[in-house]
């Protein structure tokens, strides 16, 4: 039986993958007030492409990451330009047309992946090797350690970006009051597109590290975004530190439920947690009150 501490590390690692996905959503949501359901498709395409590049074509790791970053960023920008921008002209994020188009993009990309690669999952190796380290009495794989550190760095980076940089300030302003931001010289449409671009780049950059843990398949996108959503909901919308916490909690719950009950128990437990948080503390545990209650 795997030890408690080993499960702890794998839980944190899995949680870190959720955090990375959550940050991708967070950026787009902060800039546009849209929850991008199309992210499922981007994750799937990116993960399967990483398989193609790293395993089938044996492209170098650095080059693969580069190609993925630029490629998925481009795909994301295309999504914004063709399927979001036309809608934002009429009523912006308040009308719900974007839920449909983002779902449509997600399905279309997943459907394409299904046709090209079929439903079976693929494994993608991590260049750091497979020999586990021992930390605090638990075994950690190199890729797990990497992804945990990456998640923390990305969260801090996102927070700093939003609060300290010029672009970040413009993004927060766009989210707070779009019209006022426009009057004050912020290129709101540009901010919107940039958020999609950066989010897509984030997907590309992190895929090669995330995929060894989650495997590449058509189905991974859906579960990932639901767990990422749960992480955000538990931690509180608009609060990056909260998302970090939420992601780790979700990962740990997933790992320990798997250990003690079975692989199917994790998702159910997380869903129950999500419903409980929505019912009792809708703004999340550390909510930044950007969710509007009815």
């Amino acid at each position, binding site marked *: 039986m795997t030890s408690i501490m080993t499960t702890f590390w794998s839980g944190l690692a899995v949680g870190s993958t959720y955090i990375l996905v959550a940050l991708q959503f967070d950026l787009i949501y902060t800039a546009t007030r849209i929850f991008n359901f199309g992210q499922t498709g981007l994750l799937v395409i990116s993960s399967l492409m990483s398989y193609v590049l790293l395993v089938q074509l044996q492209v170098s790791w650095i080059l693969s990451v580069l190609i993925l970053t630029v490629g998925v960023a481009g795909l994301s920008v295309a999504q914004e330009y063709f399927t979001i921008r036309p809608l934002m002209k009429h009523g912006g994020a308040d009308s719900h047309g974007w839920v449909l188009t983002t779902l449509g993009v997600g399905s279309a990309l997943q459907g394409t992946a299904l046709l090209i690669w079929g439903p079976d999952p693929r494994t993608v190796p991590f260049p750091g090797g497979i020999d586990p380290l021992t930390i605090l009495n638990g075994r950690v794989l190199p890729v797990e350690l990497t992804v945990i550190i990456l998640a923390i760095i990305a969260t801090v980076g996102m927070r700093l970006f939003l609060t300290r940089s010029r672009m970040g300030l413009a993004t927060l*302003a766009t989210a*707070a009051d779009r019209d006022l931001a*426009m*009057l*004050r*010289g*912020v*290129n*709101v449409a540009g901010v919107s597109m940039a958020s999609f671009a950066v989010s897509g780049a984030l997907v590309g950059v992190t895929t090669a590290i995330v995929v060894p843990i989650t495997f590449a398949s058509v189905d991974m996108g859906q579960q990932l975004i639901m767990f990422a959503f749960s992480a955000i909901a538990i931690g509180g919308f608009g609060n990056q530190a909260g998302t970090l916490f939420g992601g780790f909690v979700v990962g740990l719950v997933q790992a320990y439920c798997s250990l003690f009950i079975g692989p199917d128990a994790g998702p159910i437990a997380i869903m129950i947690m999500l419903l409980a948080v929505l019912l009792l503390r809708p703004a999340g545990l550390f909510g930044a009150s950007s969710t509007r209650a009815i």
Partner: protein
Amino acid sequence: MRNTLAVEGLCAGYDDLLAIRDVTFTVAPGEIVAIVGRNGVGKTTTVNTVAGILPIVRGSVHFNGADIGKLQAFQRARLGIAVVPEGRRIFRAMSVEDNLLLGTQALDPSRRNVRDSLTDIYRGFELLAERKSVLAGSLSGGQQQLLAIAQALIARPAIVLADEPTAGLSPSAITSVFEVIRGLAASGIGVLIVEERMEHMTGIADRTLTFDHGRIISESHEGPLIS
């Protein structure tokens, strides 16, 4: 004429209904032009159309001789047209300093020395300098209005359009705001100010345009009583 805002035959509105018709006026550097009229006569519509938030149905808006009708709102801001919308609108969840920093988005890139601009603004608005890190939402009404104006000014605009800047302010706050406005005109900035009551503009405006039912019905050249 340099840095003059010229509006000609402007028609605009919401959802197929024209809210303003054939609006024509100019604002030259150093002038204070007032637009007055009851609620709903089209004053804010005019400001929003000049700002670029509402589309122009007919007519034109020229600035510095060039037609800016096709430019988006943020581009007009970067050209030097600053709009201070009604309602003391600022970014409440951000600090005073962050609000001002945000205002530099409209600053001409060639003049974009953010540190200097901040210093200049703090010199002109001591009140805000003392409250740099305060959350904008916790300021009093009058202070918020001053912040809104400062946020527009930090971009060194050539024309300022202020929509009901004195609404809901105490008499002393109103005095401060008008002092700022007079100062702007004195330094060569053209000001268009929207007010509901004609009485408030006596002694401030060089010219007063009265609106009714979407049109300008009269124009008076009173000139400031106190120069």
